[in-house]
């Protein structure tokens, strides 16, 4: 009970200070993330955008190459997100056996295998 009572005021002070949670999220992200991770994030955003475009195309125009729609960018997105999780210094304790270099090698291998199957779908 005490926890619920104290919660609203605490939140209000925070939102007064930084006007909006989303904005504070953005600020925190922008300040605390390394350039390396931001690069990966940019790639992720690009993949999400291309995925959205594909999805719109699929709904509005035609889902004719259904294969291509599926093969699209989900796999790549997930692999890149895995890479991001692995190289994130905050997760260092979890991935004791995976160094950032190893993570990139894994990412490359996964992508090659993925695109091998994607390529097979093109034919």
């Amino acid at each position, binding site marked *: 009970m005490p926890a619920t009572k104290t*919660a609203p005021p*605490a*939140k209000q002070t*925070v*939102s007064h200070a930084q006007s909006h*949670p*989303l904005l*504070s*999220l953005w600020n*925190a*992200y922008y300040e*605390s993330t390394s350039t390396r991770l931001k690069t990966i994030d940019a790639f992720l955003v690009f993949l999400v955008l291309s995925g959205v475009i594909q999805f719109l195309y699929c709904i509005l125009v035609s889902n004719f190459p*259904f*294969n291509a729609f*599926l*093969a699209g960018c*989900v*796999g790549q997105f*997930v*692999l890149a*997100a*895995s*890479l991001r*999780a*692995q190289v*994130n210094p*905050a*997760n260092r304790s*979890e*991935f004791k*056996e*995976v160094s950032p270099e*190893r*993570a990139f*090698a*894994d*990412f490359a*291998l*996964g992508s090659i*295998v*993925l695109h091998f*199957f*994607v390529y*097979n*779908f093109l034919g």
Partner: protein
Amino acid sequence: MPLAYSLPSNLSPATVTNTSSLLRIIALSLISGAAIASRLFAVINFESIIHEFDPWFNYRATRVLAEKGFYEFWNWFDPTAWYPLGRVVGGTIYPGLMATSGVIYNVLHALHLPVDIRNICVLLAPGFSALTAWSTYMFTKEMKDESAGLLAAAFIGIAPGYISRSVAGSYDNEAIAIFLLMFTFYCWIKALKTGSAFFGTLTALFYFYMVAAWGGYAFITNMIPLHALALVLMGRFSSRLYVAYSSWYAIGTLASMQVPFVGFQPVRTSEHMAALGVFGLLQIVAFAELVRAHVSSKQFQSILYGSVIAIAVLGALAFGGLTYKGWIAPWTGRFYSLWDTGYAKKYIPIIASVSEHQPTAWPSFFMDLQFLIFLFPAGVVLCFRELRDEHVFVIIYAVVASYFAGVMVRLMLTLTPVVCVAAAVAFSSLLDTYLDPAEPAVSEAAALSAEADIAADSPASTSAAGTGAAASGTSKKAKKAASADSSSSGFGSGLAAAFSNKSDKSRGIFGLDTRSLVIANALGMLLFFVLHCTYVTQHIIDDFREAYYWLRQNTPKDAVVMSWWDYGYQIAGMADRPTLVDNNTWNNTHIATVGKAMSSSEEVAYPILRKHDVDYVLVIFGGLIGYSGDDINKFLWMVRIAQGVWPDEIQEPNYFTQKGEYRIDDAAPPAMKNSLMYKMSYYRFADLFGGNQAIDRVRGQQVPKTGPTLDHLEEAFTSENWIVRIYQVKKEDPLGRDLKSANAFEQGKKRKKSKPLVRRKAVV
């Protein structure tokens, strides 16, 4: 600290490690050797030959693949199956098995080893069983330690539940599927433990191989998501889980869609939706975790609640909408029959008619697993004690597989590995405790004297076992390999190392007598297990081969053979004759036609036989030697399937007595007595007993003294144990009489004339 027995202390840790790894390799290779050897009884006793039903079809397909290449195999149309329809093979099978043998064949030939494709097919299953033992070792090693791994490898190597599906010559999908199952699970555990996308990719590749090899891949498709979901619900979400699951799902699903028989099912059918749902859930949770890392938790909660609810509602709506619009196929019949055991009986008799799809009888648990079955729960409980992520997996696997094994006999096969793993964990914990030389300190023990004797696996001793993992591993492995010499040396040296970094413990075992008693008991159990396994794997009846050989030698090449569909592949492969229906049960009407012919009287059946150009009818009859998988036991299914298509002509209740019993003796109902199947099974059966009461050993009932007569068929062949009986369909009478009166005329005229020559041996 007191010791129960002395240990050599002059060994360096390096020597101990090296010796134990050497012993481990030796033990593994011995286990592989035992696994292969115990599957070769049939090859040694008889000859190198393919067994039973499905393997024959797989073998024929592999021959096409090996002789004509992959593209030809992909487009193969088989005209002799489903006479007169034929069958497109390429797109309707799981090609993993054939592709494996094809690759082995080509590699061997590239090395200039001209091995016959048949021998590769015959020996594929034993070879893969060795690989299964190895992958089970790897899997169990992740659960506990190497010693448990070796025990598990030994168990799975000779467990009858697995041997029965992988003896030499049983060239079936399951032969390679269990290896793939265990290895995929191993990769998954490894990926989850290390959080490596490399192992995730490997999991996906082996998953792909599994999809290409066996329809049971759906088990993996649902086990891994279930495990992931359980971990998330237990609050154990981690980035490692995210990496492992995402890389497996993204690559594995895309890969599985390459198999033509699977196609778009992974995004269209409900069986695969769990995997997709968990995939989506993990994305959301991972994103939420990321956001939480960047903002204070109060704000986070306000963002989180809103987004999670919105996404959940959207997801549920999307799933419902897609199902409603028919984009996602509803559950299939096989799926329902897993939950409601009566379902298949009511709606899809063709599935329920397969004896493999019946619920498991309890003796078969014991026959297949022997003492493993009662160590199994102990192992699961031990998993609860540590409860790391991988132990959760074993627990879920154990629960799910136990349920499924109870529902269907054939799913016993998926239960066997986890039973071996759990039993090995339990057994090796027992050995760890009782081989540990350290005795509890006396002063503490006095206080705890009541518990001291019972102590099975105290926390102290587990930690001790952990530090001396390799060491105590050595001892058990040595026991397992049954080499007394290496046992004493490896054992002592290992424990010396273990002892050096061990602390005092409060609980443990006193003295040598308790230890030797328990260990002798345990070894005795192992010994009986081995005896049981060799006993179970050894009985084979040769009637089938005899009969099919007769067909091949004595009938024209285009003679059409009618039999129940179970024997279709076998006849096509071993006797090389066209069949009406076979084990690929795609055409229900055609099967029902055969069912109708078998279950109606001769007069009704005869036109059906003639219309389908049937020359020979083959039935399997086990009444003489008690072979329970015979046609009379399957007969009700023929009736039911036929009734599904011709409800006016065939009615199941007519085949039961007034009291609703299924009888074949004097009290059998007329429909039963007049059916073609009954007549063919018991034709001249009573004569065999020379005036004594004839007894059917399967049904345990007395057969009427005056057996059925046949007018439209004549007996052509009966095998030594009467298991296979073949009848020739008579042609129309040359004088235009109907066959019944013609036969009566013959009988009346020439009662004294000896019967037409029938090859049959006197059976004692």
